[in-house]
């Protein structure tokens, strides 16, 4: 086992911390998610380590519950986009021809519309619930994953061992999951970290704009929105979730980088 580089260690610690908080929110949050426990914007104190928010709820508890929502939505949407995008991308690469053209041009069509605007348009006519959010985000993002998966798979498909599998009479499923996937995994995993970050930013943006997670359910983007007025009065409550979003994004990125470095066969240039 090689020594863990410090950047990866920092990434792992923060990522682990946030995920731990998200999973065990019910156990570690001092107060309930929507419980009003004090005055609005109380300063930091022993009772409320991060103070209270715009209507007097404990900010630390809001942050922990909000982290749960944000991380859950982002994770679910990432998994959806990856499953869908990579399977379709591999199919396009292996089948080629008409199937490839149809899928690729459809994806081009979706990608030509800015994701945020597309999402806002869809969410303004559908009920904004957590499953709908996951679905919209996952589907939109799967176009990016499709592109990458197809590009990686096309490189692998031209290898003789894929031809050998075709000549053996293997089904498309075997070729995709046994021949191509293991060789395409490391760029996809690295991309997964990156996509997860974009999902966190995406859901936070939507919530900030009011078309994401709906109150009283907490999420980090929503907490920024609820407390943004406080900035004017010198209350830092809105900066706490912003800080959380930034550190989560950076630490996940560090972890993804480390994984790519470890599994990549490209040696020399990338160190480690």
């Amino acid at each position, binding site marked *: 086992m090689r020594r863990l580089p410090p950047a990866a260690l920092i990434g792992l610690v923060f990522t682990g911390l946030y995920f731990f908080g998200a999973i065990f929110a019910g156990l570690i949050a001092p107060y309930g998610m929507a419980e009003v426990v004090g005055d609005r914007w109380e300063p930091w104190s022993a009772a409320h380590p991060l103070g209270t928010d715009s209507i007097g709820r404990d900010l630390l508890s809001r942050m922990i519950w909000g982290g749960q929502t944000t991380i859950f939505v982002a994770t679910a949407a990432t998994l959806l986009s990856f499953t869908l995008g990579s399977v379709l991308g591999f199919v396009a690469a292996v089948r080629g021809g008409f199937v490839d053209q149809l899928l690729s041009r459809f994806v081009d069509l979706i990608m030509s519309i800015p994701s945020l605007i597309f999402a806002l348009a869809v969410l303004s006519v559908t009920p904004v619930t957590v499953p709908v959010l996951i679905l919209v985000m996952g589907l939109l993002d799967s176009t990016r994953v499709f592109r990458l998966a197809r590009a990686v798979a096309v490189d692998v498909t031209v290898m003789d061992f894929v031809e050998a599998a075709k*000549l*053996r009479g293997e089904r498309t499923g075997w070729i995709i999951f046994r021949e191509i996937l293991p060789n395409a995994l490391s760029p996809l995993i690295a991309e997964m970290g990156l996509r997860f970050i974009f999902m966190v930013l995406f859901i936070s943006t939507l919530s900030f704009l009011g078309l994401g997670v709906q109150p009283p359910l907490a999420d980090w983007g929503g907490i920024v929105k609820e407390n943004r007025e406080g900035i004017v009065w010198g209350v830092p409550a809105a900066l706490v979730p912003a800080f959380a979003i930034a550190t989560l994004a950076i630490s996940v990125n560090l972890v993804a980088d480390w994984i790519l470095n470890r599994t990549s066969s490209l040696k020399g240039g990338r160190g480690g």
Partner: protein
Amino acid sequence: MADRLLEIENLRIEATAYPPGEPPREVVLVKGVSLTLERGKVLGLIGESGAGKSTIGLASMAYGRSGVRLTGGAVRLNGRDLMKEPASGLRALRGKEATYVAQSAAAAFNPAKRLMEQVVEAALAHGVASRKEAEARAVRLFGKLGLPEPETIGRRYPHQVSGGQLQRVMTAMALCPEPDLVIFDEPTTALDVTTQIEVLAAIKEAIRDTGVAALYITHDLAVVAQVADHILVLRGGEAVEYGETQQIITAPREEYTRALVSVRSIEHEEKPEGAEPVLSVRGVTARYRGTGFDVLSDVSVDLPAGQTLAVVGESGSGKSTLARVITGLLPAREGEIDFAGRRLSPALAGRSRDDLREIQMIYQMADTAMNPRQTVGTIIGRPLSFYFGLRGEARRRRVQELLDQIEMGSGFIDRYPAELSGGQKQRVCIARALAAKPRLIICDEVTSALDPLVADGVLKLLLRLQAEEGVAYLFITHDIATVRAIADRIAVMYRGRVQRYGPKSAVLSPPFDDYTDLLLASVPEMRRGWLEEALERRRMESAGN
């Protein structure tokens, strides 16, 4: 001694290796090699891949590829120790006193610049000549190297000349600054035999006329015997034997040199005619989608069961396309293919599982023919479970049997392809083909990426397996020596047509058609003077026509 141009003393070269899945480690590429080269002489460096020949070649300009370090000994060029020379001093001598001709001309030229621009570049950069002088010199060299239209060929771009011509242009580039030393690194290896002989002759003449000294690096002893005065045999970074060319090829002292000299001397008795054909190709014509011409036209060949049909030709002759048509990857437009008494569907999708099982394929690059993420056991085991439903212990036992058959005992079953040598990789591919119990194995240039000694081992293995299993081979190759070693029948292909076809003894004996004659006469023979004789014969024939 004043006439010693290059002296390498006890040279030691190290590098850092990055084996997959393991920590990096230090490896010694060259372990104390010494050599001297006199002015105007040619020294051949010969050895298998990994012998350190290219590394030594580059080191004679005090250059190491990235990650390679020259850690000991001395390199003296024109009496100066290059290891002590500062970077600026090295810059001044590289491209002026010593120049380099790379293996792949296509990769060495900038595709966006005209040839002349690149040929005179070094001479201009070092201020050896004015542009006008340099260009005049380049034109003279083009003429000397036998390039067509020497006056104007410099205005072309690299893609507008053939591979053999490009290699000669690179030789002109190396000679243009009038260096003392040229390093030729496998300059003819990537060329067809019929082109190789021309380039070889051009290089030899240019060396003689300009009086330049040369290091000639190659793995083909027959080639280097034509141009070198002395030969240094290398193995695993160490010098094995040094001597005059004549001595090395006629009276080698070392065991290893003897093996190199006697390589490709497998005797193969042609099997009698009259056996039922297992494969019968009738009037096949094929073209790639979106192109307007036939890559194969009216190809008809028969392959008797348990025998070997060698398909010979240069690149672009349609050999590999024939393999794709037989396997069904490229459906034929016309003609039919009978296999084991049944008509094969032209397209892969229309073939039965038995059709697929009984025709197996072995590829040129064993590296890309195996999934790097699967172990040897999985690679060989998959056809066993796919075709015969073998599982678990029974499958593992059968895989081990196959490994024994390809002479690769235990201990390999759980290894990954990256942990195998080139020859072992190709053997695993053979075992995978064999696992399907095929009647026909298509071998597409299976030995051309291997070192001669390793290739010999693979050919012997294939012959033994044929005797044991009665499998027929369709053997695609450009190498006549391989054909002699393995074929029962031969089809010579040229521009998509079968030029000559029949039993080996008939195809390889006169009277020849023009192309077969050219092909046979171009195969280097392991004796001095062959090149001159071959060229003389060619000249007489073209004069006679």
